[in-house]
């Protein structure tokens, strides 16, 4: 029995922007710390200036531009008749599938960065324990609401 191929839908381009901003903020914290360390060591005469900070900055820049793009590309979702599939992860790639009638309740959340980039996150809560929240970020408000309403229909039909 070969399972039917899944047609993955990529996330909104706004999500890439949101991920980049998120990574850039953490990168800023790291580079501030590393630069401080670098200058400190330079003043002690132990190293020459920029020997630690420059490679770190390059690495972080790579992460912001390319690393984020790779992560973004591995995200995807697919809605079938009765299930939602979510795929993500570069290092460990995970494909999760949840049947609509397993969903207990649905949240749509939007953080400040996400709001700026015009995306939001759909969270499906199941009665499970280890993976009870199935998160799908990077949806436009309209898509998220349409998905939510459709899944809600299934839940309602199920509970009757």
């Amino acid at each position, binding site marked *: 029995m070969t399972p039917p191929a899944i047609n993955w839908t990529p996330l909104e381009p706004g999500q890439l922007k949101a991920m980049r901003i998120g990574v850039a903020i953490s990168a800023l914290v790291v580079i501030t710390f590393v630069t401080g360390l670098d200058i400190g060591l330079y003043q002690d005469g132990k190293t020459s200036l920029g020997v630690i900070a420059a490679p770190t900055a390059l690495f972080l820049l790579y992460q912001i531009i390319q690393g984020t793009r790779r992560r973004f590309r591995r995200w995807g979702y697919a809605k079938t008749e009765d299930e939602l599939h979510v795929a993500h992860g570069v290092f*460990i790639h995970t494909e999760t599938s949840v049947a609509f009638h397993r969903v207990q309740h649905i949240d749509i959340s939007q953080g400040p960065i996400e709001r700026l980039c015009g995306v939001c996150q759909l969270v499906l809560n199941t009665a499970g324990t280890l993976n009870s929240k199935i998160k799908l970020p990077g949806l436009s408000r309209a898509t998220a609401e349409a998905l939510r309403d459709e899944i809600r229909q299934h839940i309602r039909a199920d509970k009757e």
Partner: protein
Amino acid sequence: MSTEPRARRLHPIIPLVTLIRQIPELLLPIVGVAAVSDGETLARPLLAVVGLLALVLAYQVLAWWRFTYTLMPDEMYIESGILSRNRRSIPWDRVQDVEIERGPLARLLGLAKVRLETGGSESDEGVLDSISFADAVALREEISARRGVAPASSLQMTAREPPVFTMTTARLFQAGLLNFSLVWLAVIMGGIQFLERLIPWTMKDIETWIGLHEQEIWGMVGPASVVLALVLFLALGSIAGVVQMFVRNYGFNLWLERRTLRRVRGLLTRSEVAIPLRRIQAARTSAHWLKRRFGLCRVDVQTMGGSSSDDVQELAPLVTSEEAAQLLAIAGNFRLIAPDRFQPVASAHRWYDAQTQALPLALIALVACFVWPPAWWGLAIAVVMGTAQIIGATPHGWRLEDDMLYVRSGWFGQEHWLLPRSSIQSLSLKIGPLQKNLNLATVCMDSAGAPSGALRIRNLPTAEARALIEKLRIHHRPRARAATEIADTVTQPTAN
């Protein structure tokens, strides 16, 4: 038995008991106070400590005063909160059971902790910690009367029906001996070391006192004393295992009443737990290699949103395979299958852990050997670890039969999981960086109350993993009722 709605409080001794329980947490500020006032007279830090204790006690008294529970005709109110009041109402309809738990301190003081078992996932939804034991028993009868059912068995009562499982003293002893573990030895050794540090004299002092020199002691070490030490170790481990088993499972009884399993056990803390059958999500049998030799195992069930923090409940600490089959049949539709029916995972799995963990360790140790010769120890450890990992990986297998998923893993401690397909909440396929090249995938099944890392089938060939997920999927059934009910496990998947 009064029926008028009257706000009741917990036992008046509770503030003091809570204070005593809090002392370990208060130790840090107390030590802090003592450290700050170092060098001064003893009076001031002592005063500070007493002041702190008095403050905490006053707070506890206030909290006790503001915690009330009221039995109303249709529900129970629990009001709490010193400043912001919180009123919780628990309708009697929703109370499935009343549990009474008594720890050693509670028994000493004649107290009992009452827990109203509702379907909710919150663990401390209806907990009265604690009231007097007589009140607790009366409360249970009152609640049972209000729910319109006969009062359930209590810790003191003997049930009308004989228990479905009992741990006899002989069985407890057997289980304790089989419970022998090196962890206990480690705890004992750690304890001895800790005591050594606490006691002002050391072994050396004792040796000096006896008038023996170290050299002479070493001279006395022969094969006989090595054997003696080994025997002593084994004896200590066995005794510790037996003691632990008796403390935990003394008087272990399991009853079946009105589709609820009721378990009573414990030597010091006597606990009673109710496990409604319809909340059981999965079952597990576990046995280490020695138990397997004797055909013995332990049986647990996984429940959803239980009263205790641990959602895996022990049904029997040690049973024969026939008894296990009986218990599993009672617990749900669980049937054990023959070991030869398990399908193996990819052959690469056997070497996977050894390759990814023991092998790198061995290589590091090998390199380190050139710099620092004592590192050969690391190499020895890596070899032992790798061998253990290869042996441990071998039994891993699975089987899907009659809507039940069976997963077997481990050799030293082997677990068999039985998961009905209807208990699966979500499915995940995971492919790690190494698995990608080997074309392998791990399938994870999430279910309500699953303990971490519980149910997964590791290193299946990716195509097989996808096919399995497809089979495990519960297709949408229009007008299907609450899918968590065990009753409707038998459903045929509609063709897609």
